């Protein structure tokens, strides 16, 4: 194993420490669980490295865990970003529709490009590509809402979506190219994955490096002065 392969793991440890410091587990519990799981998965893979069968088992179990947590994190991001936007009933349908679209795209792709995997590993790989599609849909959809409805981008859910979105976009691109070029693309695929994931973790670190201001009414908040209140009432009266 080369030393550069540990870069994403080291960055994940930094991210996890930052998430604990910012108490993100209270705001985005699934993302916190994802980061903790990623650190644990890296440690497990490192321990199992060199032992063929345990490593094989650890790899696929952790991949399945990544798939499941990836979906939960995307659900959390959609709920946090769109929850306060509107009370329309169909907002609750957005995530299931995105999920179905992602699974559909992944199955369609599996039909076009036959996989060498079989059994449970095949389903995990299909699930992984479905998660990538869901991540790109959620990220690109949220980013589209920034110029369209003026949604604020500098908030934690956007940071999470950006990291996943960038990584998923690059991975989908390399997956398409991998099917075009075959095994000669394998080395580049490994490096691209490493760099893209490191950049994604750096994006998360950047977003979570700034504390997010609480927007709930604080008991320490000072009441407006009587002068302010009078001015406010006058302004409202002029508006009516």
């Amino acid at each position, binding site marked *: 194993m080369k030393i550069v392969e540990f870069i994403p793991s080291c960055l994940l440890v930094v991210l996890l420490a930052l998430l604990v410091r910012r108490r993100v587990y209270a705001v985005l519990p699934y993302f916190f669980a994802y980061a903790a799981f990623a650190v644990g998965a890296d440690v497990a893979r490192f321990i199992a490295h060199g032992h063929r069968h345990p490593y094989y088992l650890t790899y696929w179990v952790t991949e399945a865990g990544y798939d499941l947590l990836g979906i939960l994190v995307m659900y959390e991001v959609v709920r946090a970003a769109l929850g306060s936007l509107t009370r329309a009933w169909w907002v609750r349908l957005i995530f299931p529709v995105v999920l179905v679209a992602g699974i559909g*795209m992944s199955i369609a792709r599996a039909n076009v490009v036959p996989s060498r995997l079989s059994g449970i590993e095949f389903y995990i790989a299909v699930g992984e590509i479905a998660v990538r599609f869901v991540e*790109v849909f959620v990220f*690109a959809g949220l980013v589209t809402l*920034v110029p369209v409805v*003026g949604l604020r981008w500098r908030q934690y859910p956007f940071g999470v979506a950006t990291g996943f979105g*960038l990584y998923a976009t690059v991975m989908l691109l390399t997956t*398409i190219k991998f099917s075009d070029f075959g095994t000669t693309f394998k080395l580049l695929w490994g490096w691209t994955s490493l760099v893209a994931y490191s950049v994604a973790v750096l994006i998360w670190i950047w977003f979570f490096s700034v504390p997010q201001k609480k*927007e709930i009414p604080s008991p320490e908040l000072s009441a*407006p002065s009587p002068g302010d209140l009078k001015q406010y009432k006058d302004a409202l009266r002029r508006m009516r």
Partner: protein
Amino acid sequence: MFSIILTWLIVAWGALSCIYMLRCAWRRFPKRDVDDVIPFLYPVDLSLAESLLDPAAEFQFRWKLRPQQFREAQRKRMRLYLELTRRMAHNATVLVEYADAEKHSQDPHRVKLASALQEKAVEVRLYAMLTKCKLRFWLLLRSEILTFMPFLPHLRTACEIDGLQTYSDLKTAAAAAFVRLPPDELDLLTRNL
């Protein structure tokens, strides 16, 4: 083949979104301060909007005018409401940018007011976007093709957002956010919004 093309389109959408986020990060936060708000607002006549969305007025038009005359009148009313929603959307954009900049203030009271202002402004933008799409679609279809004319009062709500009520709430939130302005400027804000 279709799934490959779709995958490429999704990847392109993701790549464009990455570029857009990079641009946002590069530009940091909008620099719109209190001086860059009032001169940039377009007045919105809410009483005119109310009259355009009034079902009683609409029924009166339908009964009084002949079908051809009613179609023409209705298209004019649609164009007028489109202009009002454009102005609402523009004003909401200006206020979103102001609130975004204001959220970096150290004063928690200002941050709270900016959050309330931004929430309402985003709702107005969402309403305006959906209503504009609907109106443009209706206007795109030539009135002669339509056997019936769209019912304008249906535009009052979009995505369960009451447009006029939300815009009125936005004005209230703006008055609260700009309460420290000198009285003449506050007066100008209330007239321009």
